[in-house]
């Protein structure tokens, strides 16, 4: 998932129940003794070969709870398959995204914690600098060429590799085909078209475009900044440049949608804690367009399967641009099972395991898969793949969260709360970011 530092509490409860069930199951398994689990598949040819790597015969993985919500598919299923083929117990534990980075920092920092972790790629710098994830540069070199360069880089920090991309994603435009069709509006391709369409589609209880508050608002600003030729930081990688002329123009355009044209439903100011909140009005058919990544789709398919929707590339400014997101699988810096863990990393990120991620509409960072017929199979997947070359990564700095979810989130909130005008808010945010980004 992309920048979900803040996850839904609603989801957390569901996941918590899942987690509780999961840990109960894990306890039950532990009580049975590992022999019962590992002995059964020992007939598999590879079992003997991998036996030496693990030693203890078990690996623990912590992942964003969204990836483990369903025990029978995706990651959990893949891990179980790997376990039975290799005579090893792979225990996948879901941790709410909000807690994952802090939990890894405190447990692995204290010498405990899991052997592997699947984390939001944006938290790789922090976990790398904090010596929580192991430096895998020497091992990863052999598979580097199999990945799209920018995606590969998103799992690195200061030119060292701290994991392998598990999946990638980008932000696209979701459109409600019924609302657009009724108004005779085409999916917008430029800023002007977006604004005009959003204004046209607003009225009578419907709204043209969805926006977020706090970090959701700041996160969704970056595409407009890049599209206008702006940058978040300068060439030195730490000096904030997002409040220069290009940035101010983009921020004004973005803020005007909310405060001048009022194309978003008024409750968008309360979208502060989850993407579920952000997508809810679109799911209910109340909002015609929204910008978000693949993590927006499950709410629609579960909450309102009849909704007539599709995705389109983001409208273009001076150039096309969207946000590169994704997840990285890394190895604990403190585990004694680096070899066994790395073997699993290589296996789970191989082309054969794409099935485990495709249900989430995330896409692999592997060139062989992206260049194959797989990329064209599904109309939604196709747009995510098509936009990937225009996707840019946010700064890879350990303290990036304190800008995106701190000063910039506050700046955006002060604009939508009517406390500051956009220009002042952005200038102040850039000034406040100088110290934060130095770390």
């Amino acid at each position: 998932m992309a920048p979900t530092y803040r996850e839904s509490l609603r989801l957390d409860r569901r996941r918590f129940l899942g987690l509780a069930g999961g840990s109960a199951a894990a306890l039950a398994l532990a009580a049975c003794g590992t022999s019962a689990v590992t002995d059964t598949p020992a007939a598999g040819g590879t079992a003997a070969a991998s036996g030496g790597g693990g030693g203890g015969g078990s690996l623990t993985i912590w992942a964003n709870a969204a990836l483990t919500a369903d025990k029978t598919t995706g990651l959990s299923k893949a891990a179980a398959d790997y376990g039975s083929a290799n005579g090893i117990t792979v225990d996948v534990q879901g941790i709410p995204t909000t807690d994952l980075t802090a939990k890894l920092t405190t447990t692995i920092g204290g010498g405990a914690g899991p052997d592997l972790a699947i984390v939001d790629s944006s938290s790789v710098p922090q976990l790398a600098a904090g010596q929580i994830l192991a430096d895998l540069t020497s091992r990863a070199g052999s598979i580097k060429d199999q990945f799209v360069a920018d995606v590969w880089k998103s799992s690195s920090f200061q030119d060292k590799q701290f994991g392998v991309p598990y999946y990638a994603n980008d932000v696209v435009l979701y459109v409600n085909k019924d609302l657009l069709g009724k108004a005779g509006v085409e999916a917008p391709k430029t800023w002007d078209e977006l604004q005009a369409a959003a204004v046209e589609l607003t009225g009578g209880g419907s709204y043209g475009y969805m926006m977020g508050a706090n970090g959701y608002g700041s996160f969704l600003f970056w595409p407009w900044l890049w599209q206008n030729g702006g940058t978040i930081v300068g060439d030195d990688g730490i000096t904030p440049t997002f409040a220069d002329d290009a940035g101010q123009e983009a921020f004004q355009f973005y803020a005007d949608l909310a405060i001048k044209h009022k194309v978003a439903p008024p409750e968008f100011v309360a979208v502060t804690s989850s993407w579920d909140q952000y997508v809810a009005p679109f799911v209910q058919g109340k909002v015609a367009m929204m910008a978000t990544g693949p993590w927006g789709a499950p709410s629609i398919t579960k909450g309102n399967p009849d909704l007539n929707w599709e995705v389109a590339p983001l409208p273009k400014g001076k150039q096309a641009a969207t946000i590169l997101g994704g997840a990285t699988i890394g190895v604990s810096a403190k585990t004694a099972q680096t070899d066994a863990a790395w073997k699993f990393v290589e296996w789970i990120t191989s082309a054969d395991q794409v099935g485990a991620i495709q249900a989430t509409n995330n896409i692999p960072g592997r060139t062989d898969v992206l260049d194959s017929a797989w990329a064209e199979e599904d109309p939604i997947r196709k747009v995510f793949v098509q936009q990937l070359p225009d996707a840019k990564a946010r700064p890879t700095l350990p303290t990036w969260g304190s800008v995106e979810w701190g000063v910039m989130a506050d700046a955006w909130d002060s604009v939508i709360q009517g406390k500051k005008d956009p220009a002042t808010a952005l200038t102040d945010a850039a000034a406040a970011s100088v110290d934060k980004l130095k770390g």
Partner: protein
Amino acid sequence: MSILQAPPAARTPGAGTRVRRRRRRWEPVLYIAPAFVVMALIIGYPVISAIGTSFLHSSLAAPGKDSFAGFSNYVDLIGSEEFLGVLGRTAVWAIASLVTQVGLALFVANILNKKLFARGFVRTSIIVPWVVPSVIVALIWRFLLDPAQGPINALLRNSGLLEAPPAWLASTATALPTLIVIGAWKWTPFAAVILLAGMQQIPHEQYEAATVDGASAFRRWFHITLPGIRTSLALVCLTTISGSINNFNGIWLFTRGGPVGSTDILTTLAYRTAFQDLDLGMAATASVVIFVLMLIIAVVYFFVVEGRSKGRRS
């Protein structure tokens, strides 16, 4: 008195007596020593470690590269623009929580102390909010207060009370007051139960005597109930105010200190500083400030309440 002291005999005891006496003096210490050592480690180590860290430049992004900072973390924190605001907001939050929770608790305890229909059931059910886990409390209230789908705003709109009710938790003007109300919902039951226990200790004869003397209900409450529950009341005030200053969940699970810092208190500041800015030294400094605040409140409590009750006993 002088007979009991018998000093000459005690000053020249046999060797066996001396050993026994010494043992008697040390025995209790030995009994509590294991518990004391464990408590000292569990409570003492983190406190000392936090105080130590507050004098370091220490970053989660650069482990093992701590350097001595002197008082610079304290100077930076206290000199920072946001600190005074956060300190003031912590005070508003703690005092408003104290007034609403203890005020409501007095009222509730008073009612529960009377003869009611199904009193046992009512007494038990009133503590339900207190036993609900904080995360569930957040879920419930965030649903109730949702600006678009929540029943509270729907009620306000449909009844015509408010044409455009605010997004309670998402507006700088209403977020903190809303959290104070939610805090009162969750914590009043606890305070009420303690106060009710205090009220039940008051001998009923006192009320009967006062009634015979023609004292009004108000006078009975003011002159019998209030003095009677003084110790419980002081305890409830102490736990409420320290609990509020330390109440991280009651804010973080709803607003994370936002919007625009309007619900940011010392604990949320410390957490953000540690896990968002990765500045452990500064986060420890904020924690030490919280610790000192607590210490002041605890000392005041001991001097005012414990001191007074000791004075009364002698």
